[in-house]
C-alpha cells in the first residue's frame, strides 16, 4: 500500500470511528513513514534485516536480553 492510499484509508477510518481529531495527526505520521520508506537501508530488501547491518558476523540478538 502506498502512503497516499494508506493515509486516505486511515483518515476515512478515523472519521468513521468518530475521531476527527486524528486526521491532522495522521498527516504527521505519514510524513514520518515517508521518511522511513525513503531511507537507504530499504534499498535491498533481499538482505536479512539484521545480518545486512553488520559488516562481520551479524548482530547478536541475545545481547541485552532482560534478566530476572
Amino acid at each position, binding site marked *: 500500500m502506498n502512503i497516499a492510499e494508506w493515509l486516505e484509508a486511515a483518515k476515512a477510518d478515523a472519521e468513521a470511528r468518530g475521531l476527527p481529531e486524528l486526521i491532522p495527526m495522521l498527516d504527521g505520521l505519514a510524513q514520518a513513514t515517508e521518511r522511513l520508506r525513503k531511507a537507504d*537501508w530499504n534499498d535491498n530488501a533481499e538482505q536479512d*534485516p539484521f545480518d545486512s547491518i553488520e559488516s562481520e558476523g551479524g548482530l547478536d540478538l541475545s545481547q*541485552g536480553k532482560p534478566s530476572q
Partner: protein
Amino acid sequence: MKTITETAPGIASGKIKSEQLTEDCLARIAELNPTLNAFITVTADEALQQARHADQEIAAGRRIGPLHGIPLSLKDLIDQKGVPTTAGSLVRKDHVAGCDAVVTRRLREAGAVFVGKTNLHEFAFGTTSEDSGFGPVRNPHDPSRSPGGSSGGSAVAVATGMSLGTIGTDTGGSIRIPAAACGIVGLKAEWGHISAAGVVPLSRQLDHVGPLAASVADAWLLYNALHKPSEQVGDALDAAPLDGLRFGRFSGYLSDRLDADVEHRVRETIALLQQRGATVVDVALPHAEDMAAIYLHLVFGDAAEYHARTLVSRPQDYTTPVRLRLEMARYVLAEDYIRALRGKALIANEVDRALDGVDALVLPSLAIPAPPLGAATMPVKGGPEAVRSLMLRCTQPFNLSGHPAISLPCGRTPAGLPIGLQLVGHKGRTPALVQAALAAELAIAETS
C-alpha cells in the same frame, strides 16, 4: 541536595536516624507536593515503619549496606507490593501490585525505605509529564514549566529532597530528559542490564530502567543495587583521570537545533574537559536524521499492541492527548514497523562506530531548557521546532542503540534553568562510563 553517599555513613554510625531522614522527606512532600504534584501515592505509614525497622537493625549491628534506611521513591509504573501502580493513568487507578517488581525487590533487600510512587507522563508516553491522569508535574526551578518526562515526578522528588533517590524508566529519554530539566543525574543503563519485570511497558525493546539521583556517585550506588548480588560491581567507583580520556563530539543533527544557552554551556563544558586533559574528536551518526522516524514507528507499534484492549474498553480514562496518540499508533503498518527494526539495528551499529577509539560520546542531554507547560514549540537555532521533537532529539538514539548513557548537570541558563550534559558509553562498560561522568562532575563542580 542531600546525597545518599554523604548520608549513608551517618546512618551507619547512628548519628543520623532513618526515621528522622524519612520524616524529613515526608515533610518535604507535604510542603511541596500540593504545588509540584510529584507524587501520586505517598506511603508514609509504611515508610516510617520500614525506617524504624532499619534503625533497629543498624543499631543491632545488622546494617546491610549504604542504602539501608535511605528514603527512595519509585516511578509509578514500577510495582511495589500492596501499593497501586497507576502508570499515571486513570485506566489503572484500581490496580494494586500483587508483588514487587524485580528492581523494587532488590532495593528492598538492600534496606531501602519507600516513601511513595511518583507522577509521570501517562503510561510514559510523553516527555513533559503534563498529561497525567493525576494532573501535571511542575518543575521546582519554575513551576510554570515542565520538569521533563516521562519520569518527571521522580526527578522533582530528588531535586527537592522529597526522596534521596528514585528509580525511573527511559524509552526515548525519560530518565535523562527530566534529570537535565531538574538539575540532577540520570543513568540509563545498557538495554536489558536492569530487569524490567514488574514495570508497565511502553516499548519493551526500547524501555530501560535506571536511577535518578543527586550525584553521579549516588546514581552508581543505586544502579549497582539494582543488579543481582552476583552481578554487582561495588558500591563506589573512582573518577577516571580526565587526562587520557577521549570523547567523541557530534556535529550535524545532534548539535544543529539547540537552544543558544544550552549550546553555549555544553560547548564550555566540553572545552573544560579538554583543558583538564581530555581529548575531544569529531564523530558522526550518518543516519541521525532518520532516527525520529525509526523511533516513532517502533514505539507506536509496541504501544498500540499493549493498549489495544483498554483503548476499546476504557477510552474515557486516558488523557485526551495520550489517547489520541495511541489511536494514531494503531495505524502503523507491519511493513513499516519492520523497516524501523532494520533502521534500529543500523543505528546501533553506527553508535558503536562512533565510539570506536573514544571512551564516551559527549552531547547535550536536552536540546532546550525546561519548556513552559503547554508549549507546542520552542525557539532554537534555525527557528521554532516542536517541543516533542526537541525533547527527544539528543536522547532517543541511545534507546534505539541500547548503549548506556548518563545525564549530569553542567550549568544553568541566565534564567536559572538547569542544563544537562550527556555521556554515552560502550556496551558492557558501564562502570567506565560512570567513572568518566564522575570526572566530568568533579571538573564542573570545581569551576562552578
